[in-house]
């Protein structure tokens, strides 16, 4: 008979068979993926498309933002400062208003993103060395847009009145900007978005890839032959997951490179730690998608299950809304989603430079979710056609 079927296989040869069959399945899946042009295009296109779409929103350098100005006095220094503001290219004065009501209204209805008020007696206070303040109110519902413009104010402080004589020389700047972020005082920084995108894109593509894998074999009629051959559910699962770990890895690398090169997201922590934990996260999603595949009756159902799972991942993981701001029940759901933990991991490593010990809990949760999904998949896998 075949070399693989001795009468009493030793434990070692059993293990050898296990890997050989998993490998057979992996090779097969790779070839099928290679032939499937649409899936192949998806691997590259989904991250690119998403990044470009979101990239519009996370353009960290938006220019010529509409600005309203309220002049409580008409002075040369005031005009100099306004000119300096416009010279930064971030502000474009579109409205000059006469009272505070109009000032508030323009900001509230979104006509302007900034409203700048030069108070009465500004020039007098300046010459006295009283360091008067200019109010800069910003619409922080879009913190990304407001962020860099506010950053530019600092430069204006230093340079606006450099050539204006008669202002006392001090160590401190002669006046100050008092910024007031309206509507979203705890503005999150734009840098949060790229790391978040890595997670959401991976969740979406990984789920879809494996969610179809078992149902596709059933619908194409290949499952019956597969079940009549000596391969176990665990081997089938591994064979179907492994190729996509590599795919996920390529996607993650693609998104991160673009994020770092194009959007200037820093990577403060260890790249290898990030790669390792990303692999774990990728595996978690593949395992969950595979589980749907064993539960669904057909490919459509598998897709629907994936979407149903994808939505809370987007909404409750802290990607869309700050996690801490969610009600407790929503936080509990969030804790059961892999994206929640991955977002913490990727943000911590990239933006805070965290190391592994800081991430024990989230790593353990990811590993736990993966094992749980795999256990469900293996027990729910139908070994017969009954």
């Amino acid at each position, binding site marked *: 008979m075949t070399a693989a079927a001795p009468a009493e296989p030793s434990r070692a040869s059993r293990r050898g068979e296990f890997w050989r*069959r998993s490998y*057979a399945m992996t090779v097969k899946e790779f070839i099928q993926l290679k*032939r499937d042009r649409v899936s192949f295009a998806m691997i590259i296109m989904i991250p690119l498309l998403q990044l470009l779409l979101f990239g519009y929103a996370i353009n960290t350098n938006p220019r010529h933002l509409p600005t309203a100005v309220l002049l409580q006095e008409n002075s040369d220094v005031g005009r100099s400062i306004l000119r300096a503001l416009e010279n930064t290219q971030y502000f474009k004065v579109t409205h000059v208003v006469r009272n505070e009501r109009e000032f508030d209204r323009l900001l509230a209805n979104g006509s302007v993103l900034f409203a700048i008020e030069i108070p009465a007696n500004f020039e007098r206070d300046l010459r006295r060395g009283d360091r008067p303040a200019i109010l800069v109110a910003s619409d922080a519902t879009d913190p990304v847009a407001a962020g860099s413009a506010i950053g530019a104010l600092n430069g204006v402080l230093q340079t606006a009145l450099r050539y204006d004589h008669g202002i006392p020389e001090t160590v401190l700047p002669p006046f100050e900007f008092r910024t007031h972020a309206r509507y979203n005082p705890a503005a999150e920084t734009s840098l949060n978005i790229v790391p978040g995108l890595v997670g959401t894109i991976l969740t979406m593509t990984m789920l879809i890839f494996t969610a179809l894998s078992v149902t596709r074999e059933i619908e194409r009629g290949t499952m019956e032959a597969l079940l009549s*051959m000596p391969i176990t559910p665990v081997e089938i699962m591994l064979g179907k997951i492994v190729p996509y770990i590599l795919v996920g890895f390529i996607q993650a690398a693609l998104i991160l490179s673009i994020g770092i090169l194009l959007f200037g997201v820093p990577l403060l922590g260890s790249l290898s730690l990030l790669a390792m934990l990303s692999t774990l996260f990728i595996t978690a999603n593949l395992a969950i998608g595979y589980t749907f595949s064993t539960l669904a009756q057909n490919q459509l159902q598998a897709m629907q299950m994936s979407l149903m799972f994808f939505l809370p991942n987007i909404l409750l993981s802290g990607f869309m809304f700050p996690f801490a701001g969610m009600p407790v029940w929503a936080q509990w759901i969030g804790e059961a989603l892999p994206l929640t933990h991955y977002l913490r991991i990727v943000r911590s490593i990239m933006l805070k430079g965290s190391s592994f010990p800081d991430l024990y809990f989230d790593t353990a949760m990811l590993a736990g979710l993966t094992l749980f999904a795999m256990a469900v998949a293996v027990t729910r896998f139908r070994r017969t056609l009954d």
Partner: protein
Amino acid sequence: MTLAQDGAQGRAHDNAQGGARDITPAPVIAIDVRGLSKSFGSRKVVRDLSMQVKRGTIYGFLGPNGSGKTTTIRMLTGLLTPDEGEGTCLGYNIRTEADEIKRHVGYMTQRFSLYQDLSVRENLEFVARLYGIDDPAAAARAMVERLGLNGREEQLAGELSGGWKQRLALGACTLPNPQLLLLDEPTAGVDPKARREFWNEIHALAAQGLTVLVSTHYMDEAERCHEIAYIAYGVLLAHGTVPQVIAQAHLVTYTVSAADSHVLMQLGDELAALPGVDMVAPFGSSLHVSGRDRAALDAAIAPYRTRAGLNWTPSEATLEDVFIDLMSRAQDNFQ
């Protein structure tokens, strides 16, 4: 021989084989099942089916569509669990030793079940790897050679013609050197020439000692089998060699021909209504008129035998006559 001995022999036979297939000397039983039943919902699809297939034989499993052939074969491979009944395949219990059966039985499904988006070579290598064959590439090459698929190795399986697909599927399930082949309607929808070549291949495999169970609904293929079984409505109605099955039916048959086909058709309708005539079947430009009771049949047709323009001759019942008769009787009992 008891079942236990049978099983032991099945395994001993395994161990003795070093790699080459040998020809089993004693007529050991490859498939031995008793009282198999299976229902889907409230529909009983296989009823109390018993079957014995000797090693090294080609066993034809005949029956019309929907008669339960596929369901039976699936129970033999362990893919479906019987509601009732017991049995062994190559000595392995079909309920508890499905894993062993999978290693030693090649199953060719009714629907093409290789990967359409994999090439001929890739499909064969996949199977070779699953069965742990040492050099999958060499095994696939050898099989391509054997199937006469040279030059098509890199063609996608989905792009092959029907006949080639079936040959490839047969190749894939014989690649791991099984002792028993279960082929589910392997020649359905295949052109006559490819059908003939396919049967030649089956005979070549059987000559090497393989046991082959082939299901089919083509009557003419029965003649190519060593033994046959006929199933309808989930009931195994007859089994044995072709002459045995014909003899068991005890059908008395006459052939009647007429110059005018219209007259013949009308005659057929009249005869079929008579008591003692169990079956009337058109056969080329004549009719086969059969009955299970010779006296009753002779009495029934007596008035017609002298009618001008009709030519009556006693003849042998064909297998088809027997099957049609079996089916109509089964219909009375089970429908």
